[in-house]
């Protein structure tokens, strides 16, 4: 199923280093700002949260919806993006 966006492919293709949260698939400017307000200013911090939730995409999706009001599509896109990154680099 290759319905991934360019943003997704860009993120998953290399180590995230110091990329901002907006580099994550599904996270645009609005959600990015909300994440930064919550203290998640870099992609690796969001990765930290993903890892804390034991790399459970469902749990992470719920967390995104709950904390920043992301919709299902955005949240699952971000979760999938992080999961694939972890599979590749972690």
């Amino acid at each position, binding site marked *: 199923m290759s319905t991934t966006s360019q943003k997704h492919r860009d993120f998953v293709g290399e180590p995230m280093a110091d990329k901002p949260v907006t580099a994550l698939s599904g996270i645009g400017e609005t959600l990015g700002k909300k994440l930064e307000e919550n203290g998640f200013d870099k992609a690796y911090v969001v990765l930290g949260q993903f890892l804390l939730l*034991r790399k459970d995409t469902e749990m992470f999706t719920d967390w995104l919806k709950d904390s920043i009001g992301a919709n299902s599509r955005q949240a699952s896109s971000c979760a999938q993006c992080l999961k694939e990154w972890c599979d590749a680099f972690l």
Partner: protein
Amino acid sequence: MENVYHVTQIADDKGPVGSALSADYSIKTKALVTVLQNEARLAGSAVICGCANLTSPNSGEVTPTCELYCCAQLSFVSVHAAQPSSYSKGWSAGWRMSESVCLQMSLSEKSDEELGNLLSQYGIKHGPIVGSTRHLYESKLGKAMEQASVKTSSDKTYYREEEEEVTYITYHSAATRKRSANTKPERADRCCLPRCQSVLTCRVKRSTEQHGVERPDADTEAAVQVTYSSTNHTSVRSGEPTGDKSTGSLWKMILVLLPLAVLSAVCYYAYAYIV
């Protein structure tokens, strides 16, 4: 002139409920909310922090609505709207703390370890409970607890209904069995709802033993039949096939006995011929 508040509290199974009545139309929204907040606190339920959308009486609207937000913004509780009654001159507004909110607030008081244990209990796989994850786990646990309580209560009702239905079926079929002098319990099973056969069959068998002693009243039977058919339409349909099946089994018996009789006759003549 001071505003007089009449505050009442009712406890019911849906959660703590309170109401505050203002004596005067000039009461400010905030003041009424403060009373409600205090009452909520006194009731031992979660602290309610804010109120929104309380409509002004000046607009002529008689049914105000108010949504009180929980401190942690876990959920909001809708407030009763009430018309000014004849004995009160002002607005009345009540609050009802939803069960889920109560649950969640009590969960927030639990330690990390206790929360972790509860999560495991409800089969929720969880990671470390830290600041950023706690809120999520609390809401998940609250939902799981609510679902569990709803499930058990609905199951109970369902089971109770099933029990009732099964008893009635057995009464009815026991009576028919007495008339037809046929003690096969399988026929009763066929009357049962197909989706709950496993539960019902056991019950039916158990209750058939009892009916050997008891005599069902015709009135109750008739009434029971009515109630059963009203609760479940499939019972009407199942009545006919069971009738057909009873005659069908009779035919089957005949079909089995006939060849046996023929066979025995043939053997007899063969024996007689030999002799």
